């Protein structure tokens, strides 16, 4: 599946993102290797979701480049960006299912729009994706009838519908109970191993960061830039930066941060 040769899957250089004139994060550089699970970490409000928006094409960076398989993502036309973007799958913080369609239609819509498949093949694919995320019999239900965890799973099935090369997650376990969150972590690992997908996830959930991420970047709200690079485990054990050290060695188990994740609703 890797067609980028020796390019990183995602290369970010001197990236500055913000709203209007206000920069939220400045001068970020990092690389995401193919097949890795990469974490964007940092406290609430430091700009993780904003960086993610630039990566998935929702917010034009004020400066810097983002390369997907070595191609400059923001340089080309909107059409070019949309073509590259079709290799992405995104799971939004709230699942973001299209509320006027059933779960199965949600998963099917990208396939209908962007593949020449007939209905039977689309049905088969939809059933596969829904089974992969553990919702084999919920295709006919409407998003409003699902619980928070199920909505995220359904959103994940939709993100998987076009067999993405890169999966983006915005706080996958925020708002989930510890059990569901752990199952979602396992699912992410299995999907990565199964499809050899590259995963970029935004999180401040320590347990899942330590369990699943190979690499990452730590964003700081004060200095508005990256203050540490590397795997979350390495950051916890070796990083001398006081902010990172305090963050990574916070007491408490999964759940201690749940309310924060919820409160930062706009995400």
């Amino acid at each position, binding site marked *: 599946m890797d067609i980028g040769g020796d390019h990183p899957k995602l290369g970010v250089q001197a990236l500055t993102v913000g709203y209007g004139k206000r920069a939220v994060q400045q001068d970020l550089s990092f690389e995401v290797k193919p097949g890795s699970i990469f974490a964007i970490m940092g406290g609430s409000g430091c700009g993780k979701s904003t960086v993610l928006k630039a990566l998935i094409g*929702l917010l034009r960076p004020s400066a810097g480049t983002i390369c997907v398989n070595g191609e400059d993502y923001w340089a080309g036309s909107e059409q070019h960006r949309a073509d590259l973007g079709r290799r992405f799958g995104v799971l939004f*913080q709230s699942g*973001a*299912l*299209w*509320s*006027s369609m059933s779960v199965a239609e949600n998963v099917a819509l990208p396939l209908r729009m962007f593949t020449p498949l007939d209905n039977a093949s689309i049905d088969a694919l939809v059933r596969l994706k829904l089974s992969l995320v553990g919702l084999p019999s919920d295709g006919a239900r409407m998003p409003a009838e699902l619980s928070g965890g199920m909505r995220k799973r359904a959103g994940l099935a*939709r993100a998987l519908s076009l067999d993405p090369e890169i999966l983006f997650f915005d706080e996958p376990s925020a708002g989930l109970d510890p059990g569901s969150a752990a199952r979602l972590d396992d699912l992410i690992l299995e999907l990565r191993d199964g499809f050899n997908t590259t995963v970029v996830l935004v999180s401040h959930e320590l347990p899942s960061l330590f369990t699943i991420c190979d690499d990452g970047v730590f964003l700081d709200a004060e200095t508005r830039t990256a203050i540490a690079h590397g795997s979350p485990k390495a950051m916890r054990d070796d990083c001398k930066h006081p902010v990172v050290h305090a963050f990574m060695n916070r007491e408490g188990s999964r759940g201690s941060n749940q309310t924060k994740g919820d409160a930062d609703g706009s995400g």
Partner: protein
Amino acid sequence: MVVLSGDWIVRQTGIEASAAERLLTTRSASTLSFEAAQLGRWDSALIVFLWALRAQAAKCGVAFDQAGLPPSARQLLALAPVDVVPVAVPTAHQRLPERVGRQAIAGWSEMVEVLALVGESILCVVPVLRGRAGMRRSDVLDCAWEAGIAALPIVTVVNVLVGGILAFVGAVQLRRFGASIYVANLVGVAVVREMAALMTAIIMSGRTGGAYAAHIATMQGNEEIDALRVVGIPVYDYLILPRVVALTSMMPILYLYGCAVGIFGGFVVAVAMFDLGAATFIEQTRSAVNGYQFLFGLTKSIVFGAVVAFAGCRVGLRAGRSAADVGRAATTAVVIGIVSVIALDALFAVCANALDI
């Protein structure tokens, strides 16, 4: 040395923040220390007092020794920033001219924005209607049902009543000249040229324009629109076009229906209350209303439908992402819809007059 004693409970004793100031200005000391042995129950009231005292002490260069305080109070105090003085913010009591001025400025900028939106909506209707149909037929049908059949009851009620009111007001006046028979002309022309199209458009902007705005704003808040953009599904084709098409095609039908029930309302009032013959009424109506007038009303209703739908969608897309924004979007869409429909109607009237239609 400050001796703290008794209870410090917000609800019972109030807050003594200003006492801190008096304490330090009336006495001169080099160190502030505390004695809390007689301190009773306390809550935020005490902390606010101590906080103010600490800020005041910092300002006057007096050392603040918190060793005598209860440990929990010391902890809370450590959480509060040192440099902010917690005096009660004087309530922003604006003078009348200031308030009026502010309101006027806010109102003006809102109006400018509304006008910009109306203009934008009108300009955008054409390319969207010409745009390729990347929309799903089922969406259009859903929207059409919602904007058409489901709106029939209220369209009926309002138009019947408007027709009846026209007949009543007209008949009372015309009877004085012995010209009651022309009430049929009055009702027919007014309903077909103006009222059916206008009232239906106003109803639809309250009913459907507001609903479109609220729905799209909710989708915005749920990141559903972001999800569409990421996959590369064009938001205009997918969300806006079905709605504009549905309302624009339903509106003329509702207009014709509105004409029928409006004239019927006038008929009932004229026949039942003013003893006009049924046959006379129908004959007079037939002579007063011609095809051009229907065409005029029909054209207006199509334009109104497009504008209302477009304004609703635009407002929804522009909305912020909180729950309050959804309500605000709905209200704004209704206001914009009604204002632009009435303004356009006036424009149509002027044009019709100039063209002598």
